[in-house]
């Protein structure tokens, strides 16, 4: 058993020629071999040197031979399962399956003033409950929905957030590291009987792996969990402004991580993360919502299909808009469908509004319709005797014949259309009678229903809760000793 996600029924969208793909892949190999990567971790340097890399210990620069890189890529499973708390929510990454995941925001956003602030504990729980309920939301992002909630010290935010996700949902979850919290978080996941997926090997672009990232990766491997390789190139700032060059560099950063992981533990389950954006040349921030992101992702999905490693796309959620509005809709919708068409295995979508600054459960509910529509599209059209309905067409014939009263219509229409759950689909007079409700009004109503009706599919046992509490106490003591909690 596992979540089905959506299955793309037709060949993926490809925008690069075979020659283009080869050129970019060769450039990536060249970067790894000639320029190399700085890896600020002694044990990693030794491991790489032992495996034929050229290591300069002074500059911490590692140059990787092509053969090793290709061998390590081959060792990555092209499909693999990750374990959720409820087996019904396990995920199987790879192939033509597309999953949708949530996107974090530091704060909750007010839907009238669009100001943002730290969420309360109740708001945090409600946002988790919404994401647990939404049909097409398959897994949680690392620190979704918010970075934390009121009253929680900075260093405990990720741990306490993880516990909320585990308590109020049985869906699979991502996880990030900060301030050496990995030991506590992994132990909590183990107690809950689940795995977590962490973009532990997070490169700092260009071409640098910090000591902390490598430590996090090695710890993930030690626990036997799947591991994400990640980087956040900004085209025109930490990478070339040209997409071809940015692709080559971005992939070199990710593959350097893969080499290290596969040398540490061959055949580890690796998931390709990544947070590519062009530079916003006005503000200096990443250029969220730029169509260049989608162009980059579509090309990269094609390249990674060649490498045979599952990957996620992020462009679909980071909008420039601070509101739920037209700009937000186009900046998330267009990249999301392009990612789904071009073979992303997971698409970052639910709840995030501006960058990683704001998140809203109302946005999540709206995104469930967006995911549903995209998923419906990529599942394509069924063509067989029954769907062709030739006998029926002969039977109905010309006017006054019609199809509305036919069993075939009754049985098929819901499968062939996607019915939005919170979209306004009324006629004009009906809309006026309804009080002129829009999709946000409907989403608010749906949220109320979700909160009042929610049940977790598998509750934590009393023993599990107690064990988790013990780990939390240990974490607090650890941070008090470090001076992070007063």
């Amino acid at each position, binding site marked *: 058993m596992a979540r089905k996600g959506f299955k793309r029924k037709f060949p993926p969208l490809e925008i690069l020629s075979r020659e283009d793909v080869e050129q970019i892949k060769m450039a990536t190999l060249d970067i790894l071999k000639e320029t190399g990567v700085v890896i600020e971790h002694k044990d990693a340097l030794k491991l790489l040197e032992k495996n034929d890399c050229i290591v300069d210990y002074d500059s911490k620069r590692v140059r990787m031979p092509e053969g090793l890189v290709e061998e390590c890529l081959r060792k990555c499973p092209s499909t693999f399962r990750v374990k959720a708390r409820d087996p019904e929510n396990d995920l199987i990454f790879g192939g033509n399956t597309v999953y949708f995941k949530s996107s974090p925001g530091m704060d909750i956003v007010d839907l009238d003033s669009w100001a943002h602030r730290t969420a309360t504990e109740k708001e945090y729980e409600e946002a988790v409950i919404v994401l647990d309920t939404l049909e097409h939301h398959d897994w949680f992002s690392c620190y979704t929905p918010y970075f934390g909630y009121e009253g929680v010290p900075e260093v405990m935010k990720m741990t306490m957030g993880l516990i909320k996700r585990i308590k109020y949902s049985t869906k699979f979850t991502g996880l990030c590291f*900060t*301030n050496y919290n990995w030991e506590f978080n992994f132990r909590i996941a183990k107690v809950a009987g689940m795995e977590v997926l962490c973009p532990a090997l997070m490169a700092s672009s260009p071409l*640098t792996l910090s000591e902390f990232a490598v430590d996090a990766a090695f710890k993930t491997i030690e626990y036997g969990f799947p591991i994400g390789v990640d980087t956040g190139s900004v085209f025109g700032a930490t990478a070339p402004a040209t997409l071809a060059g940015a692709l080559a560099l971005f992939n070199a950063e990710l593959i350097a991580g893969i080499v290290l992981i596969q040398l540490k533990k061959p055949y580890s389950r690796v998931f390709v993360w990544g947070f590519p954006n062009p530079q916003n040349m006005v*503000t*200096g*921030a990443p250029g969220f919502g730029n169509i260049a992101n989608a162009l980059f992702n579509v090309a990269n999905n094609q390249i990674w299909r060649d490498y045979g490693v599952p990957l996620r796309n992020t462009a679909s959620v980071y909008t420039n808009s601070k509101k739920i509005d037209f700009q937000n809709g186009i900046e998330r919708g267009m990249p999301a469908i392009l990612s789904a068409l071009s073979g992303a295995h997971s698409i970052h979508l639910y709840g995030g509004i501006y960058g990683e600054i704001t998140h809203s459960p109302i946005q999540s509910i709206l995104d469930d319709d967006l995911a549903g529509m995209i998923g419906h599209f990529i599942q394509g059209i069924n063509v067989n005797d029954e769907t062709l309905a030739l006998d029926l067409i002969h039977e109905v014939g010309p006017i006054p014949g019609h199809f509305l009263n036919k069993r075939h219509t009754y049985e098929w229409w819901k499968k062939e259309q996607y019915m939005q759950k919170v979209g306004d689909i009324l006629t004009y007079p009906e809309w006026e009678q309804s009080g002129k409700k829009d999709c946000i009004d409907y989403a608010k109503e749906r949220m109320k229903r979700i909160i009042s009706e929610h049940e977790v599919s598998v509750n934590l046992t009393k023993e599990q809760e107690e064990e988790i509490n013990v780990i939390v106490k240990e974490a607090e003591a650890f941070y008090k000793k470090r001076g992070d909690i007063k």
Partner: protein
Amino acid sequence: MKEQLFENLRKSMLDYDEKSVNILVSDAINSKINPLEIVDVFTQSMAEVGDGFEKGELFLPDLMMAAETMNVGMAPIEKMIIRNGLKKKTYGKIVIGTVFGDIHDIGKNIVATLLSANGFDVIDIGANAKSDRFIEAVKQHNPNILAMSALLTTTAPEQGRVIMALKEVGIRSKIKIMVGGGSITREFAQKIGADGYEPTAPLAVKLAKKFVGKS
């Protein structure tokens, strides 16, 4: 002749034409023009680029290219200023760095470049800098301003630690502290006891000028 040379220098600066700037600076030096007057041309040209940016006509790469071009032209002039014992006008001294745990330094570099191009004397202590390094730099250089960057939400609290450490050694009150970076907010800056925060590099320059009473 001097006016024509300065006009050509200004135009070359605005074309980000390093080669021409180099030649024109050599001509100016050979013509025994006061190097401080040449510096003024650079400063005025940078101000023009800054105005273009504020109007939305120019973009970050323009600011960076202008700063790079200015750096090329300023190199021989700096030497002359030192050799002749002259004193360059400066708005003040700034120590800048990215805090410990964070090796992202593009944003910090943009701010440092723009501060420098706008007449500040900038001491860049790099990325992944622990409190000790900030304290050492403040003690050594006695700056007007300390600027700290952190991209990640996970490293942002480190800015607060640096401020605490500065308090502990009794030098916090001697400097203005400005913070920035992707994860920083105005509220966060207030919470950790910084004197100011701005979300973008050009605004950071304005804030620095305000701190030294030049806005």
